[in-house]
């Protein structure tokens, strides 16, 4: 029926050639990116997160005003609308502008009521000269991304607060503080988590059991009362920067456990992995074993863990500051801004004070989606 058969040769054919495509020489990062980039929502989230951090980085330039600049004439001034075309006796032309306010005090409630005033045309433009500032506290500058041509004119794109400060400028500056709390706090957590989780997972034994008990305990304590307790114990006369770092440390004292858990878990399973034992039997030093053979399997998982830890930090800071035990004015964070929204009267009069809350939600959502995407892509070799 068939020709004489050479068993060895045909058996060779049975050893199917898998993967002959372009990924044969792809490193883990290429594979992770390949997997991550198919996750559409995570890609969108990545763009949003990058944008938010860009806003945080260029806050002084992007904000029309200094966050502390106030003007009692514009208490709770409503948002202005941007008009692209101006119609006057000369006809209609392209001239971006906003309208100034007519205001009067309501005799009954003593509230100041605002109306847009068509007479007061305030031309606006990109890269206008405005209030001088020190970019990153170093370089003197006075250009702003968007603002009124005449810096004395009112410009409230998303409205003003109870002291007549520009909410947009404050929210932009708040972005820097809130997002940096997330990032720096996570860095602290990462350091603690990496060291303790690493020791716990790599050494095992008694050290591991002790660290595990501590982690379990910390996770079982309701965080808010504890944070509040620690934050309340801070002396009231500390300068803002010191408060900022104290809050960071308080947040990371609790936030490190999740990262430690991930690191420990990975180390524990890696330690038993055949390829790690094989490397040990190659005779490599302990340092090289950890850095060269174990750590590369951890990086992507750590990135996922910290991406998912940042939103928790942001939420925690927001809650603390909202309750008045976190950051204190004049520092502006989203949580500090939301303190103004605590009062029902204030928000019924000026609902735009919810904007920082929207920022929190968007940032947290984007970071969560991003973290989820990274976590799903973190192990491109899993079946």
């Amino acid at each position, binding site marked *: 029926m*068939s020709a004489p058969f050479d068993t060895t040769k045909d058996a060779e054919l049975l*050893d199917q050639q898998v993967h002959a495509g372009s990924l*044969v*020489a792809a*490193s883990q990062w290429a594979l992770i990116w390949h997997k991550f980039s198919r996750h559409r929502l995570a890609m969108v989230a990545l763009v949003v997160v990058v944008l938010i951090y860009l806003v945080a980085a260029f806050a002084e330039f992007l904000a029309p005003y200094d966050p502390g600049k106030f003007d009692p004439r514009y208490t709770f001034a409503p948002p202005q609308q941007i008009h692209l075309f101006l119609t006057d006796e000369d006809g209609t032309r392209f001239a971006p502008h906003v309208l100034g306010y007519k205001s009067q005090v309501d005799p009954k409630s003593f509230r100041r009521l605002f109306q847009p005033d068509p007479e007061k045309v305030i031309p606006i433009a990109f890269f206008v000269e405005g209030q001088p500032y020190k970019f990153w506290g170093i370089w003197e500058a006075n250009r702003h991304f968007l603002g009124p041509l005449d810096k004395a004119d009112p410009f409230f794109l998303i409205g003003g607060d109870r002291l007549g400060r520009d909410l947009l400028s404050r929210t932009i500056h708040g972005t820097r503080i809130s997002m940096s709390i997330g990032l720096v706090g996570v860095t602290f957590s990462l350091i603690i988590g990496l060291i303790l989780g690493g020791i716990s997972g790599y050494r095992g034994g008694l050290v591991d059991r002790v660290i595990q008990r501590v982690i379990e305990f910390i996770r079982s304590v309701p965080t808010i009362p504890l944070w509040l307790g620690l934050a309340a114990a801070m002396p009231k006369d500390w300068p803002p920067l010191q408060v900022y770092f104290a809050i960071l440390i308080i947040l990371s004292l609790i936030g490190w456990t999740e990262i430690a858990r991930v690191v420990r878990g990975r180390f524990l399973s890696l330690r038993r992995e055949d390829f790690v*034992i*094989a490397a040990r*039997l*190659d005779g490599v030093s302990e340092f090289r074993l950890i850095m060269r053979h174990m750590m*590369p399997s951890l990086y992507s998982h750590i990135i996922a863990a910290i991406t998912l830890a940042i939103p928790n930090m942001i939420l925690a800071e927001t809650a603390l500051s909202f309750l008045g035990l976190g950051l204190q004015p004049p520092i502006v964070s989203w949580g500090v801004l939301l303190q103004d929204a605590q009062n029902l009267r204030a928000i019924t009069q000026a609902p735009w004070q919810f904007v920082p809350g929207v920022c929190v939600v968007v940032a947290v959502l984007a970071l969560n989606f991003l973290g989820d995407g990274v976590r799903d892509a973190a192990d491109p070799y899993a079946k």
Partner: protein
Amino acid sequence: MSDETILKVRNLSVDFPIQKSVVHAVKQVSFDLKRGETLCVVGESGSGKSVTARAILQLVAKPGAITGGQILLNTGSGEVDIVKLGSRGLAIREVRGRRIAMIFQEPMTSLSPVHTIGHQIVETILLHEKISKEEARKRAAALLGRVRIPEPEKALDRYSFEFSGGMRQRAMIAMALSCNPEILIADEPTTALDVTTQAEILSLIRELQRDRGMAVLFITHDMGVVAQIADRVMVMFRGEKVEEAGVFDLFERPQQAYTRALLGSVLKLETPAPRPPRPAAEKPIAKIENLELHFPLNAGFMGRPTNYLKAIDGVSLTINQGETVGVVGESGSGKTTLGRTLLRVYDPTGGQVMYWPSNGEPVDIATLNKAGMKSLYGEVRMVFQDPHSSLNPRMTIYQTISEPLRTNTDMTERQMMDRVSELLARVGLPPDIGDRYPHAFSGGQRQRISIARAVAVRPRLIIADEPTSALDVSLRHQVLDLMRDLQNEYGLSYLFISHDISVIRYFCDRVAVMKNGKIVEVGDVVQICENPQHAYTQNLIGAVPRPDPRLRADAPQ
């Protein structure tokens, strides 16, 4: 056995859409199953044999789907096409468990962990028959007794995790038989079991089949099992039926090239490779004496633990230069632990491992210090069982193979690159694949890479821990032949650990049989295989299914 056909499968096709492409897992497969016969479906991984079995009960997992063909079940009062019944609804449920029952590969996970054995069997009976709970329970107990589970009444109220793998598979069989099905589909039911347990389960299935006149569709990859139990055999390869024949015909006169290749690679292992005669005066390279590895079981608080897990319990064994010593045993016998303890992956708690290095005095590995171990890693190497987990997926082939060179030699990068290319060529791979990652290679190729890494530093002794177990049978002797060639070339000695007697017989000079951390018998491989002395060894050797149906009791003369 009657000639009445109970199941007719016609042009069955099953597809799995994966992302943008479609995998045709089963392509136009047709076969008949007669009352009372055992039809074995045999094939290697990816041949579609399991999917075929699942299709018969409409159990193909999503996104897979039956895309064509008929599965005609003879109900006595006409034929029912199971394909038309769909995967839900009363009609298919009447078939499942009632007419066709199924047992699975993983006895450890095929039973619910949160329900008692009794509950699961009684539930099955009550699903299909209108009898009282008490009667159902009585029948369940009788069934457990029938599959020889001790104290069936008590066993009903126990959970699956309280049983061993073999007992669970018995319980699974009892459940499958609870409604007297006409067909039993067994999907690799013994693959996860030890060879002695496998023999018991196989004889149990055969016995029950004869009692009840059941038809059995038996899925397996093991030609030995086929030879033992099949009446007829269907061979599958990449979703297609290659050949179908009576078991004696198939083994004696395979018609298709693939069948011959498959049988050839199995039978090749049956005949030991020619070995050079051993020198009269052996020179030892390693001598294990009374090696012990005890783990405390109840790590007592402060006080001394009173109970130990004796993973290695006083093992003595000598490996001579240029010799291949096999260690065979069932799971939990301590054979893998023994291999690892020799290289101090675990620190022994007692005994000695004397090793004669290439230059200098013998050393005791069991008590060697760090520096001493470091110099040893270049001489004693290890090959692991699973080629998927023993290669770091994040390192290129070059990085992996060069790692031992980097730590044990003073080679320059240039020299290492040349050496790696040379090694890759030597193990039968293209020399220019150094920049690729392990995921680009198949299991057999990866095992070759692992071997290249092991021999990169010209070792003298290699501890090979089941290096062929994760491979399909057709690849096994290739890897073994490669190891044999390297042995002749470099003058290597092997400690070869395996659960598979046929591989041991093919490859080893001497063999040690391990059980419960002890060596029960050591001797020449031929002597142990042909004429075992110890009762356990006799049991073990006797349980190995040989790929020769002529050895069966019911073989025609």
